[in-house]
């Protein structure tokens, strides 16, 4: 134990000394000189982690010379979008991180803009949705949940860490709809954070939790819950024991992407440079370290492919929200 502590002591000193300079260390060899990450939410959230993790991998691998970060929360992310558009002229080096909620929130008019008002650069990582039950739950697979739902929709109480009409709710409604149920009858119980939804699940007041797969895996590893299903096309190699909805006869797939947008009107060369830098990043050990630490799934989706993916997602979510009466 003492040798370990000694090692951590050396590491401590090294980290404290280096942390200030590490961003500039390889400035001369970098492909992109600098990137300014605009984060539409506060420190410590999912967007924040994505931007800082990506920035860390890019600078450590020497692909980008210097990375800076700006947290701008407000209006469900709308503040940062408006800011990026208003100041587009001087945001040449800026990448804004975002994810599925930009599609949902522009549909529900939380903010007037949509991804079309920005320059989509690339989707970089993703996370599938997952359904979780407590260890002592009577449900062993998703079909049993569907059977109960068909018999009495209100007997299945689905918890989620966000408001009605947001992702956790929509994914659950989507799954039950694909199984032949009425999505409007899904009894969704909203909590204001994923942790509180989990606490609610363990207290026995809800029967199932709708959340992201990486969070679900962490919860399952904690030993209190089981994962009934996830929304990928096929099982993933990090968690081969988790079955998909598809193989349980429910034809529903969903991925919560995270990716980057540049300011509107930015030059095509610059966009290409951003995309090249991100693509190059995947092969680096620095990225692998960050990715593994966070349990991210790589889903690289650049430029036009990204746009058509966003359009497709907007269509599916829009239809579902109309059916649920949110639009």
């Amino acid at each position, binding site marked *: *134990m*003492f040798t*370990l*502590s*000694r090692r*951590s*002591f050396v*590491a*401590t000193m*090294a*980290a*404290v000394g280096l*942390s200030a300079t590490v961003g500039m260390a390889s400035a001369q060899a970098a492909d992109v000189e600098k990137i300014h990450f605009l984060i539409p939410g*506060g*420190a*410590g959230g999912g967007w*924040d*982690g994505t931007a*800082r993790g990506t920035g*860390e991998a890019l600078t450590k691998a020497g692909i980008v010379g210097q990375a800076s970060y*700006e*947290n*701008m*929360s*407000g*209006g*469900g992310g*709308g*503040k940062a979008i*408006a800011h990026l558009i208003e100041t587009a002229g001087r945001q040449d080096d800026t990448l804004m991180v975002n994810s599925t909620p930009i599609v949902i929130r522009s549909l*529900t008019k*939380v*903010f007037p803009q949509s991804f079309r008002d920005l320059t989509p650069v690339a989707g970089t990582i993703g996370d599938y949705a997952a359904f979780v039950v407590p260890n002592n739950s009577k449900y062993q697979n998703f079909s049993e949940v569907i059977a109960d739902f068909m018999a009495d929709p*209100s007997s299945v*109480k689905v918890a989620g860490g966000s*408001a*009605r*009409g947001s992702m956790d709710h929509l994914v659950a409604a989507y799954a039950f709809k694909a199984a032949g149920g009425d999505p409007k009858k899904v*009894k969704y*119980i*909203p*909590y*204001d*954070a994923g*942790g*509180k939804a*989990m*606490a*609610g699940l*363990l*207290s*026995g*007041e809800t029967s199932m939790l709708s959340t992201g797969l990486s969070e679900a895996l*962490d919860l399952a*590893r*904690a*030993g*209190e819950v089981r994962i009934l299903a996830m929304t990928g096309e096929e099982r993933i190699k990090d968690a081969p024991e988790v079955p998909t909805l598809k193989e349980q006869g429910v034809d529903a797939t969903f991925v919560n992407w995270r990716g980057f947008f540049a300011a509107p009107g930015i030059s095509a060369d610059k966009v290409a440079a951003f995309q090249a830098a991100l693509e190059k990043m995947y092969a680096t050990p620095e990225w692998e370290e960050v990715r593994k*630490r966070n*349990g991210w799934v790589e889903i690289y989706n650049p430029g036009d492919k990204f746009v058509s993916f966003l359009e497709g997602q907007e269509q599916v979510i829009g239809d579902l929200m109309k059916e649920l009466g949110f639009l």
Partner: protein
Amino acid sequence: MLEGILQGITTAATPVNLMMVFIGCFAGTFIGMLPGLGPISAIALMIPITYSFEPSTALILMAGVYYGAIFGGSTSSILINAPGVAGTVATAFDGYPLAKQGHAGKALALAAYASFSGGTISAILLLIAAPALASVSKSFQSSDYFALMIMGLTAVSAFAGKGKFLLAILMTLLGLMLSTIGQDQTGVPRFHFGIADLYDGLDFLLLAMATFALSEALMVVLKPQSDTKESEAAAKGKLGSMKITRDEAKDLAPTVGRSSLLGFFVGVLPGAGATIASFLAYGMERNLAPKKEKEKFGKGSLRGLAAPETANNAACSGSFVPLLTLGIPGSGTTAIMLGALISYGVQPGPRLFVENPTVFWSVIISMYIGNVILLILNLPLIPYIARLLALPRQILTPLILFFSLMGVYLLSNNTFDIHLMVIVAVVAIVIRLMDFPLAPMLMGFILGGMMEENFRRAITINDESISFLWERPITLSILIVTILLLMAPLIGTFREMRAKRLRDRLAMDGEL
């Protein structure tokens, strides 16, 4: 378990980890003191540096920052009425009046002792019962939280001076109303007047800083003459005695004991936290205080200072129970720590103290050490920090304005918040000039949001019926305690009236 504890002690006592406790506490104290800057952003920024550490070392550092910030937050609450962190808003209720009366030294010292006791008592509770307490974290449902918030609202009487009960209720209602601004849990935006920035609702700390620090500082500008006596006392840099007499200590011991237990218990619940704990403790002490002491609440009661200060630190340690034993974060700060832990490859959960006993026990042991360090660190600093009050008003006032505005801006990097804060401060000044109390509004705001949320959830879960109010044993018990709390003063008044009538009759008899 004993083996694990011993292992934890050896790990926590290594030079590196002792240094981390010290650095964490030191950094935390200062982060906490600066109005607005809280442990969340500090810890989030620290994570990349900690990746090269041992998991226990990293967690010890982060925990130190967390409880250090709650410890340090009381300083700015007491001295300039600008709460450093949300958990120390209630500390300002009695701490600031004490400082104004020239007892700044005593108030700061008492806050330090109270934090130390709360932190230490709950560290001991963690040591004895952490794994067992996981079941407590799991047992609370939405309806129970709702009942708990209702109980918290009975604290309204704590803010009601003589004949001001209605005003206090009115202000509580205003707080409840303000808490409904923003998107509700069904996704419907309320009272945002088309302003996107109001979509996420008002921030508690913004409200507290605007109504307390900002309006206080502006009042000095508006009514300089009314302040002369106090500013004279302050101008002399009167620190007052830092000593807490034996009688006071005796008097405060039960308060500290009760508040530690209450705070720790509330902290263990994933749906509550340090802020709620401090308000509940403040209310409980007011309700339990003898009549004479009751009247001092809000005007510089030592009990009123000790209760929230003890409870917020106890809750802070308590929140490590759901974090470590269930992997459930109860607050933003613990959520970040959870993320960090997982990325170190440490999986919190019921098996943590079996599979990774070193991490589990060393963090708990380090909390005990950390509280001692905080006390040693803070007590000698008090005379210097308190000298802040000796600054002339024309320097101190702009400083307060600067720090509170900047603090709120740092929370969100949103200029709208500064505008909003100024508007709230102006309204608060009007309310103050009418002699309405502002503290109940903050209480209504913090409890109201959680009350509504949990009530609506409980109703949805129970198929649109409110039968949970009497069918769930925990909910029912809390509600019965609430009713008893409400009745207690009534019974007291009734008895007094009867005694008085009896006396009057006797007196009349005597005359005859």
